[in-house]
């Protein structure tokens, strides 16, 4: 039997108790599609962080198995740290975006994207140079 609006209301958290309060305590409820899109964006950032960590772990494993120089372990550690920072940033970015939507303000620029792209390009260049020197 489908839920009635009253059933939903009994389960839904009242607005004043919704967390984080610095987001839900201000403004008005935006179009749910925008909130869902914001949630998906945050999850995509979390997965991006996870991909960086997975790359770092893979690099550590390969370095251990093939007895490669410690320099690669350093790159792997940096990738893991960057991945963790990316995941934390995803949460703050979600807050900033949701807050801006509730207040009807322009969405903040994705500044972390610039840093992420720079780091990935740098890591790619360093690994490419290393691979070239090994040939």
């Amino acid at each position, binding site marked *: 039997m*489908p*839920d009635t*609006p009253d059933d*939903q*209301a009994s*389960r*839904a*958290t*009242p*607005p004043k108790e*919704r*967390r*984080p309060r610095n*987001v839900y305590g201000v403004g*008005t*409820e935006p179009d*749910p*599609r925008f909130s*869902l*899109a914001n*949630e*998906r964006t*945050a*999850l*995509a950032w*979390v*997965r991006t*962080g*996870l*991909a960086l*960590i*997975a790359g*770092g*772990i*893979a690099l*550590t*494993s390969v*370095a*251990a*198995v093939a007895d490669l120089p*410690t320099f690669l*372990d*350093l790159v*792997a*550690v940096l990738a*893991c*740290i960057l*991945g*963790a920072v990316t*995941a*934390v940033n*995803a*949460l703050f970015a*979600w807050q900033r975006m949701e807050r801006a939507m509730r207040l009807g303000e322009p969405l903040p620029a994705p500044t972390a994207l610039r840093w992420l792209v720079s780091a990935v390009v740098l890591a790619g260049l360093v690994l490419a140079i290393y691979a070239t020197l090994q040939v």
Partner: protein
Amino acid sequence: MTDAAHAGDAAQGRADLSEVAVYGAAPERTALAWQRTGLSVVIGCFMVFVASFRTQTIVIGIAAGVLGLAVAALSVFAFPVNAYLRGHRVDSWPLLVIAGASVVAIGILGTAAGVLTLFR
């Protein structure tokens, strides 16, 4: 539903079932995004688990295994699927924090494995 009634529902944090069709595939895409994230975290934990045998850091591997099992359980029992598909409002912040914290935990485990390998 009238605008006034809609505003009343929104003020009470209540979703309107009659609007589910208007949202289109957005709830379904979001539910899938949650499941993809859960799966990615579990695979990440499995990678750390396997890598720990290669790098001789078994304790880190066990921690990753436990984390992976916990996130797999969350994916099944806690990540929102039915709620989204029925058009219910979901308080996603606690779940986002859990997903982010899981990735941070994997990052710490991966960093620890790398550092231990570095000084071995």
